[in-house]
């Protein structure tokens, strides 16, 4: 045995990916922003300076703190048409955006993964049904589908989640089905089949761990889109109902006061942009980190 210092133990692919991710400064900064929004959403009741639904017409459309006049002490980002504190509403609005996005993406990932595994591994009529359903759902423009469903079901938080999940699972399903079709031909699956493992065991124990990283990448990527969808539905008045603050409906609230009070509409939009942009940057970093092919070529 030589006396040289011990080599560090080889890193697992996940650890390598995380190390690559940590080296991507843009992705790290974006993740910090996302995390900040998450903390804001969780801690909203303790952080928000005011009750987001506390209306007072004396504060109607008061300006942000940096404006020359018509400001209201303690209301740093001004108030909306009902005199509600915009900062507090933005903080609580993060809750709606993030909880809808997280719920939709998680449920869709589970459904999409299971459907994709079944379609890709079992083939036959399972695959036919799943694939036709996927094709049909892809036949709707996203927003049209969501609006149509919301129109029929009526507005509300649960219905938004339902409407978006019904479309969203398709994206995970397509990816997982493709990965499963490829995995099906791999030696480890052949071996498991030869050992007499049940299809259920092979799908959940053998193939599932190997499709998790693409599912993760798709999920983060879709999250950005879902946030925009929720905001769009809420903007149209089909989303979360008042008085619950949502960024999309806040933008809509300010539309009538663009001339006198630009901040009512613009500030919530800025939050959407910041959050969605950060998620996109972070997921781009994740895709680069988790896809070894991309990494080798760069």
């Amino acid at each position, binding site marked *: 045995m030589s006396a040289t210092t011990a080599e560090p133990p080889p890193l697992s692919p996940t650890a390598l990916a995380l190390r690559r991710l940590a080296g991507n400064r843009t992705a790290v900064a974006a993740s910090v922003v996302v995390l900040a929004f998450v903390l804001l959403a969780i801690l909203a009741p303790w952080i928000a300076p005011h009750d987001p639904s506390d209306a007072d017409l004396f504060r109607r459309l008061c300006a942000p703190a940096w404006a020359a006049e018509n400001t209201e002490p303690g209301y740093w980002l001004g108030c909306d048409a009902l005199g509600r504190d915009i900062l507090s509403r933005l903080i609580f609005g993060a809750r709606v955006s993030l909880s809808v996005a997280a719920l939709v993406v998680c449920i869709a990932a589970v459904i999409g993964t299971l459907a994709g595994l079944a379609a890709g591994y079992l083939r036959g009529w399972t695959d036919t049904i799943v694939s036709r359903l996927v094709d049909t759902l892809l*036949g709707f423009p996203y*927003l*049209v589908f969501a609006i*149509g469903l919301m129109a*029929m079901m009526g507005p509300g938080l649960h219905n938004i989640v339902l409407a978006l999940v019904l479309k969203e699972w398709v994206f995970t399903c397509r990816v997982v089905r493709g990965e499963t079709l490829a995995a099906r031909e791999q030696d480890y699956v052949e071996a498991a089949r030869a050992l007499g493992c049940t299809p259920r065991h092979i799908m959940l124990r053998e193939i599932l761990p190997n499709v998790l990283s693409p599912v993760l990448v798709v999920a983060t990527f879709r999250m950005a889109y879902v946030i925009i969808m929720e905001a769009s539905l809420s*903007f*149209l*008045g089909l989303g979360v109902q008042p008085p619950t603050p949502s960024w999309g409906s806040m933008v809509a609230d300010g539309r009538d006061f663009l001339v006198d009070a630009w901040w009512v509409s*613009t500030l919530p939009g800025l939050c959407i942009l910041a959050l969605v942009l950060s998620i996109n940057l972070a997921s781009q970093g994740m895709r680069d980190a988790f896809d070894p092919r991309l990494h080798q070529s760069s």
Partner: protein
Amino acid sequence: MSLSRVLERLVQLPIVLLGVSVIVFGMMALTPGDPVEIMLADQRATEEQAASLRRDLGLDRPVIERFAIFLGNAATGDFGLSFFHRRPVFEVIAERLPATIELTLVALLVAVVVAVPLGVAAAVKRDSWLDRALSAISLFGVSLPGFWFGILLILLFAVHLGWFPVGGRIPFGAEVPRLTGFLLIDTLAAGRPDAFLRALSHLALPAITLGLPTAALLARVIRSAMAEVLATDYVLFAEAKGLSRRRVLFLHALKNALIPAVTVLAIETGSLLGGNMIVETVFGWPGLGRLVVESIFARNYPLVQAAVLLYAVTYVLLNFCADLLYAALNPKVRL
């Protein structure tokens, strides 16, 4: 894509269309409560009136039969009566359609005019500041909520600078007789260049709101396709023949790079259909999108249903056209 793939898509087309109709029909079932009660909510209807409406709507028949009737009616353009307008749904939609098509086409024009030169330039000057800026802007484009972008444009160009109107399609006093429903055509046909310009200025901001994010996406597609093509042997060979730079870039390279771009464009046109609802609402544009949003709040279900079906069928057909166009542009696929 091979010829067999085109044929496969052709076979799938009716299946997808049928699936889409099933879903649109099924959406009606999600309506909470009895549709008849909702429709008659504001009118003090007797039990008999409700029963007769139920019979008229065919709600007393089995589901399969109702779906068959729905499909048959839809195929002939009969979507029933729009309660709100008290006219056939088909007629109401047809009236609003030109405004939406006009907006979509101009938005597409904006997207192509912006995206093609930018994408080509970024591919030619890879890793230059322009290339970096374009990829940053593209990311911005997909992260930007469309409704908010529209409001920012209104705030800047309409409210503050006053260059463009805040909303609407044509000001009072500039109306022209309806010929095609496309104002840019009708105003010219009526010999009113002044009205044409005013219609154009009303169109500008909504078209930009709809077109620029599409342009960001399209420019990225063109950039990567173009970068790939520029590295091929046939571009090197074309340069070695002593052709002008312009001919090499815009004939040899772009003709090949456009093949994937056209596909993306056709699919994006479909996405614009959804974006229309938002943009038309923001700008008070009297098109189909705004009509649908209004109808939702007026509980005008037949119209919503018909419009959703129309959007979905258009989208499916556009995707199919994208495949055909791909085949047509690519001489390796002979039809």
